[in-house]
């Protein structure tokens, strides 16, 4: 049986019928309307040192309807208990748009050709078909390996999986049916002793790493051997020295680069932020609409791409959450800002290219601009080649703390680990490493990026909007060499 054959919305025709009912309630009195009908199920298994396992599985189904009436948006969402809920959501959305009449500049969406189709994540082994016993055998092994060193005070391991049926329809005629499966794992170790507390994580310091894939994804992570490594490193960090503050050359590992992309590239390039829509919550951007096409953002080694058509990531899809077909765009091309992460509303208002970055957290929230699969294009060579090229400096990875200002300009990040590098060879382990800078100066100091063999992708959750909604996305990178970075800032 397919990993997508579950629940009550696996069938496109059933979903289309519900969506048509919702749109039918408002289509003759709206300029435009769209509806998203989503069924989702998420499984999370955690084991914690000294505690009983925690097992949970969550299911929800609901509909979100968005309408445009005389240039004013309205939106309503609710759980789907019956067909009545779909129609009620449509009526509520229409009523809220009507109530907004006269409260601001109207929006006019350029017409868009309808696009319809079906998309499904490639899954070799359904994670929901894996037995509880198999899951907990793995988790117990990871936890034991990670907590073996004496000074490990806390350790936690987890496996997660999620499956979704996401159906979309609009009054322009688009009908889209997407079926997603994702699988992930996490490990977090806290060591305590010698007057210090240190943490190590794997495979991503943000809730673990999750990919659009089946159970087979876990075997690519080598969790057991990595668990032993991070446990030992957490303890070793307790007595590790710190780097001297100052200026230094640094090779940044792929996880930390992915976080740097998220905070200083992805967010800075969201067009709704650039236009001020998020000024009250998520913030704005140092990039202005007039900068697009000409602003030097980084060195010629820096090309950052949004491409949701790359399979297997948390930012992979065929259509975004307002029905725009997925396409690849270079956001930063050899250091120059070329495109933004845009949705229909922001693109229409600013005259910028529509790049299909409207994303929403399930059915319950209005789509806003979020990253897709946004990644740094790899360069050439291996990590060792990059360290050799650097000579003396540091190799750092795995985010420990992250802070950046409202305009995504002034940042300070800390990493879980750093290694001293002398003549291209890794040496001492260092703790509490931090670095800071100004976004375009930082990316302008990137001298080289390692090649495709060193490239890794990381799935992230992200928050935006009021009320806050989550976005799920992906960033990828190979290690990169940054010259003359300000280090030891905290």
């Amino acid at each position: 049986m397919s990993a997508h054959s579950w629940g009550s919305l696996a069938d496109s025709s059933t979903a289309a019928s519900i969506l048509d009912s919702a749109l039918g309630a408002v289509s003759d009195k709206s300029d435009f309307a769209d509806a998203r009908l989503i069924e989702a199920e998420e499984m999370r298994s955690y084991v914690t040192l000294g505690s009983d396992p925690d097992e949970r599985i969550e299911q929800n189904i609901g509909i979100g309807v968005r309408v445009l009436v005389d240039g004013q948006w309205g939106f309503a969402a609710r759980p789907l208990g019956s067909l009545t809920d779909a129609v009620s959501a449509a009526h509520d959305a229409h009523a809220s748009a009507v109530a907004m009449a006269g409260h601001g500049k109207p929006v006019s969406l350029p017409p868009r050709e309808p696009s319809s189709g079906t998309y499904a994540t490639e899954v070799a082994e359904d994670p929901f078909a894996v037995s509880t016993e198999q899951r907990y055998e793995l988790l117990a092994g990871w936890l034991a390996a990670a907590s073996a060193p004496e000074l490990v005070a806390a350790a936690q391991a987890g496996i997660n999986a999620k499956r979704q049926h996401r159906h979309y329809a609009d009054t322009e005629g688009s009908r889209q049916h997407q079926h997603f499966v994702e699988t992930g794992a996490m490990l977090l170790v806290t060591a305590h002793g010698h007057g210090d507390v240190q943490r190590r994580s794997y495979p991503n310091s943000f809730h673990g790493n999750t990919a659009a894939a089946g159970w087979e994804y876990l075997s690519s992570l080598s969790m057991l051997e990595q668990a032993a490594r991070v446990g030992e490193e957490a303890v070793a960090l307790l007595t590790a020295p710190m780097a001297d503050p100052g200026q230094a050359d640094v090779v940044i590992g792929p996880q930390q680069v992915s976080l740097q992309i998220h905070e200083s590239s992805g967010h800075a390039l969201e067009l709704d932020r650039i236009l001020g829509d998020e000024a009250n919550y998520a913030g704005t951007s140092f990039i202005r609409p007039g900068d697009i096409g000409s602003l030097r953002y980084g060195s010629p080694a820096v090309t950052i791409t949004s491409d949701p058509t790359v399979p297997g990531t948390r930012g992979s899809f065929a259509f975004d959450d307002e029905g725009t077909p997925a396409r690849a765009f270079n956001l930063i091309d050899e250091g120059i800002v070329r495109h933004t992460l845009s949705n229909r509303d922001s693109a229409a208002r600013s005259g910028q290219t529509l790049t299909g970055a409207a994303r929403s957290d399930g059915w319950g929230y209005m789509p806003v601009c979020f990253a897709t699969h946004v990644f740094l294009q790899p360069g050439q060579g291996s990590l060792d080649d990059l360290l050799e090229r650097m000579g003396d400096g540091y190799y750092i990875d795995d985010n420990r703390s992250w802070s950046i200002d409202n305009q995504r300009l002034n940042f300070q990040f800390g990493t879980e680990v750093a290694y001293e590098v002398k003549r291209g060879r890794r040496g001492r382990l260092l703790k509490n490493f931090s670095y800071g800078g100004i976004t375009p100066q930082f990316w302008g100091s990137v001298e080289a990026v390692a090649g495709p063999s060193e490239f890794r992708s990381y799935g992230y959750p992200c928050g935006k909007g009021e009320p806050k909604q989550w976005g799920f996305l992906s960033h990828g990178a190979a290690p990169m060499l940054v010259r003359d970075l300000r280090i030891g800032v905290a």
Partner: protein
Amino acid sequence: MSSFTAPVPPDSLLETLQKAASGTSADAVEIALLGRAGEYTRFAGGRIHQPQNITETQFIVRAVADGHAARAACGTLGDLSATVARAAALAHDLARRAAAAGPATVADPVDISDMSLWHDDTVAFDAGARAALASSAMKQNEAAAGMFGRAVTQMAVVNTAGVAHHTLATEASGSLTATVDEGTSHWIDLHRSAGALGIEQAIARTVSEATAGRGRGPLADGHYTVVLGPQAAGELIGFLPDFGFGGELAAAGVGLLAAPGPGAQVAAPIVTVADDAGFAAGLPIGFDLEGTPKSRVALLDRGRVGAAVTDLTTARELGTASTGHAHIAREEPPRPVAANLVLAPGDETEESLIAGVERGVYVQRFWYTRLVDRVTGTITGVSRDGCFLIENGRLAAPVAGARFTHSVLDLLATVDGLGRDLRSQPVMNVWNGAATAPALRGHNFRFGAAS
């Protein structure tokens, strides 16, 4: 337009949940309903760009078999019976593969003191009222951006040991960022009562502060006496659970409860920070999702290390009773959470706090604050919006946002003045979570990146 009603009809709800809980082979079952029907009017760029009506419900079922617990959740009552069966099956599965009986239980029934969480002024805070306020804000400040909202929050918990709690609460929220040239100001507040937010006054004050912020210059690195506005102060106290006041850290022997330990003086004697769901600020609810009544827990009691917030699991590990702080955040393992943090107010006005400073900085708000060192309590972030130099007891030139890296505990140890007016702000990723604080005055706060 949607009516302002409970997400799930309350009539016979507890009986329905109890019936669902009782129909399994599990040793014990607990069901928690978390629901919210919210209406939000969000505006920016001279328009209401995101009006949203969002109803969400989640039924979280926790089943226990031979002392091993598992959870399953669904979104509608119609799926509840199947979800209870699913949780029970998962729990039995865990029990079968376990070497011995586990320690998991459900809460015992305890009476909860009645606290009215329903406010008619929030009922009246409808789309028309919110749109009018948004228009007023945008009229007073062309670049205004903000959100005004109201919601009905519904929470119910039953279990097979006899717990049966249900509450309906109103929720009002407001936030605004005004921008005048490069001057900005921000306001945010949460309360069960819309009237308590004072939105019209907040709009006028925020626009006035943004206007005063024009022509701001850089803040020189250095150590300053600071007056933190209520939002900046609230952001700092939100870090206290990270210093060992969450039950899971306390159980692991990490943080202030392990060393220097309860009773140790770590903050100024005028600083008391408690998690207090009985305090009428923020978004209190009197019980947690395990059905345990929320106790007032002083994290810092007159500057001394107090106690940790716990749930059933961490309380058992610590050998105490649950304080009623069970929580499950999305994409995270369950852990106890301080959802109603309150820094006890003093008796000063912001003006009198400022009047006591010869040279210093007023900080309206912090941004993107992150923990750097759990042992020292050091965090990093930037100041932003309505920040000013203080000279000779008065606000002077506006200053731009600046990076800081400083220990929260070090600052709390220097506090010598607290304001009387409280404001609340959401706690990230915590359902109904809020941190409430007055303005405070502290010393030797370090702005600048490098030490």
